[in-house]
């Protein structure tokens, strides 16, 4: 307790130096706090968008598609989906099951062709997956068995189509022949993801099956599961066993983390975050070491006197480190408060990155919302306190290396 009192008293002896030390620690902690919330906001946002618009929590795909980077041809789709859906529904942890057919098509616009991507789905089964109703800009939701189409807003602009217009398209069916389809535009949607809104349209599964000659077939069956993002892997594991028991070796369940390379592609982002944190730590460490060392050097005679009075080396080390810890403690609290406040404000308002994301093909919404949590604050506190202690270590060692007699003689 006496050591803490001494440390408090010492911090008041050179207020400007104490402030400089505190600022170095506080700004670093604030930056680390905000960055943690920002990175978490970006990755969680990307994962949620990916799951919602593409992957589902778990996706059942033809086994041939598991290690394939390109989409399977339509004739390799999942057959007899009615019985398969019954099996999937009986698996524990599954909430919703929705078959989908994705198909490429060239849409005519005058003498030009616009490459587009159709998704045939059951809107009624997609409430917690690709919730088209939530995405409607104008018009209404398509029904499960209509020849209606909902267009991505940017695709609709390119095609110069609006609600009530007709869209005729011809694509390659599952036999390799031509599959025509005449649709009524019932809605314009916006997912918020530029590349998806530029080329995607949505039709009922029934219409897609008819147009592509894929009766009772689908290219994938998308599932939502209990416990959301975290629940995908255990549910996929148990579903895999169930499918084996049901003799459906032709398909395999994939949790969202194992679909494509998105999840693994974001691992370097975490490494980058760690490196930036390390760099900030080193910069702050240099400043703090410098100020604490100056403080030690100015008190050489005082430290010599303390040693001459019988203070042990450990006690001197504790005194200097406590001083740094006291500054670090308050600076860390201030840094966390500042970082969390900024993160919380931006969590509400969001950061608009639409300009930067316009031409990227990444499932990321243009508004990024930092995602601060208690864990963010705990990590930042841990970082600030470790930084304070690490910065004081070298000056403390310098202090105890002084011989008391020599220290007392110094000017």
């Amino acid at each position, binding site marked *: 307790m006496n050591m803490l009192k001494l440390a408090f008293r010492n911090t008041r002896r050179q207020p400007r130096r104490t402030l400089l030390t505190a600022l170095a620690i506080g700004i670093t902690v604030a930056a680390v706090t905000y960055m943690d919330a920002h990175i978490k906001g970006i990755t969680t946002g990307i994962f949620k968008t990916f799951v919602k618009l593409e992957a589902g929590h778990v996706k059942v795909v033809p086994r041939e598609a598991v290690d394939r980077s390109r989409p399977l041809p339509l004739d390799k789709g999942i057959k007899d989906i009615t019985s398969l859906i019954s099996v999937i529904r009986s698996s524990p942890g599954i909430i919703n099951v929705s078959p989908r057919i994705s198909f490429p098509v060239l849409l005519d616009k005058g003498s030009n062709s616009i490459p587009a991507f159709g998704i045939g789905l059951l809107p009624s089964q997609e409430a917690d997956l690709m919730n088209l109703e939530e995405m409607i800009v104008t018009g209404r939701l398509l029904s499960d068995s209509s020849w209606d189409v909902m267009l991505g807003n940017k695709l609709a602009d390119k095609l110069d189509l609006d609600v009530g217009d007709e869209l005729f398209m011809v694509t390659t069916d599952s036999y*390799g*022949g*031509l599959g025509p389809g005449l649709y009524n535009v019932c809605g314009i949607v916006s997912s918020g993801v530029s590349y998806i809104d530029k080329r995607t349209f949505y039709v009922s599964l029934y219409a897609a099956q008819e147009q592509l000659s894929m009766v009772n077939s689908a290219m994938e069956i998308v599932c939502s599961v209990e416990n959301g993002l975290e629940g995908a892997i255990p549910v996929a594991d148990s579903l895999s066993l169930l499918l084996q028991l049901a003799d459906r070796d032709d398909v395999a369940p994939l949790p969202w983390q194992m679909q494509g390379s998105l999840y693994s592609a974001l691992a370097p982002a975490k490494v980058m975050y760690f490196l930036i944190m390390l760099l900030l730590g080193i910069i702050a460490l240099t400043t703090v070491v410098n100020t604490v060392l100056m403080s030690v050097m100015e008190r050489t005679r005082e430290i010599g006197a303390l040693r001459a009075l019988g203070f042990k080396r450990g006690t001197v080390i504790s005194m200097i480190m406590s001083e740094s810890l006291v500054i670090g403690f308050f600076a860390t609290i201030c840094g966390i408060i500042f970082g969390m406040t900024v993160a919380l404000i931006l969590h509400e308002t969001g950061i608009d990155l639409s300009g930067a994301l316009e031409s990227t093909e990444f499932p990321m919404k243009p508004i990024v919302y930092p995602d601060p949590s208690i864990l963010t604050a705990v990590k930042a506190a841990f970082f600030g306190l470790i930084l304070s202690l690490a910065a004081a270590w070298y000056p403390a060692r310098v202090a105890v290396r002084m011989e008391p007699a020599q220290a007392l003689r110094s000017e």
Partner: protein
Amino acid sequence: MSLICFVVLTASKADAQTAEEWLAKVDGQMFYKSAEYTALMTVHSPGGANRFFRMNGKVVGDEFALMEYLEPPRQKGTRYLKRSDNLWIYFPKQDRTMHIQGHILRQGVQGGDMSFEDMTESSSLLEKYEVKKTAETDTTITLQLESSDMTVSYPFRELLIDKRNYLPIKMVNSGVNNLPIKELVILKTKRFKNRTFPIVTEIRSRLVENKWTRFEIEEIRFGMKFPDDTFTKKVLEK
């Protein structure tokens, strides 16, 4: 004796023909002024499944052709209209017409081995290919065709011709690297007055194993005269 002389003279006359003359004969044999037919197309997929399409067709030379599916119900009423190099498809359920162009030309009709490009092609090979004779037997002659014209579907072709009727018993169509893409084999012919006509033809993919498309002419009449509006775009309406 006179019979022997006749055979020898005929044979030596045949031998004397150049590759171009042989090809001109083939072109002549494959060309007809007009015809109307009913045919069954079988599309065999590598998995072993067969799909059947019955159709009615009207043809006037190389210029005009109109074909309509009679079966199966899903395709019934779908029409193809060819006018010179242009091809349109009419989809009755949607009441919409599509001009076949670009990449779709390379696509197989009903996923089979005959492409839309094959459909629009003129039957005259001599106009587009340099030809040389590569082999000859008593009954057949082999011609090698090569074209530097970038618009042809197949830069290389090899024809095995039956000397008796000038029909290509087998034709191998190859791509730019002279790698075979598909082969056309005449399985059955029928004599109509003064000409022999292939009535069962099979197109076999050389890229995908066990994939073929067979055309069986069930009924054919030559020398038809069709109404003036038979090959107009009016037929691409309900």
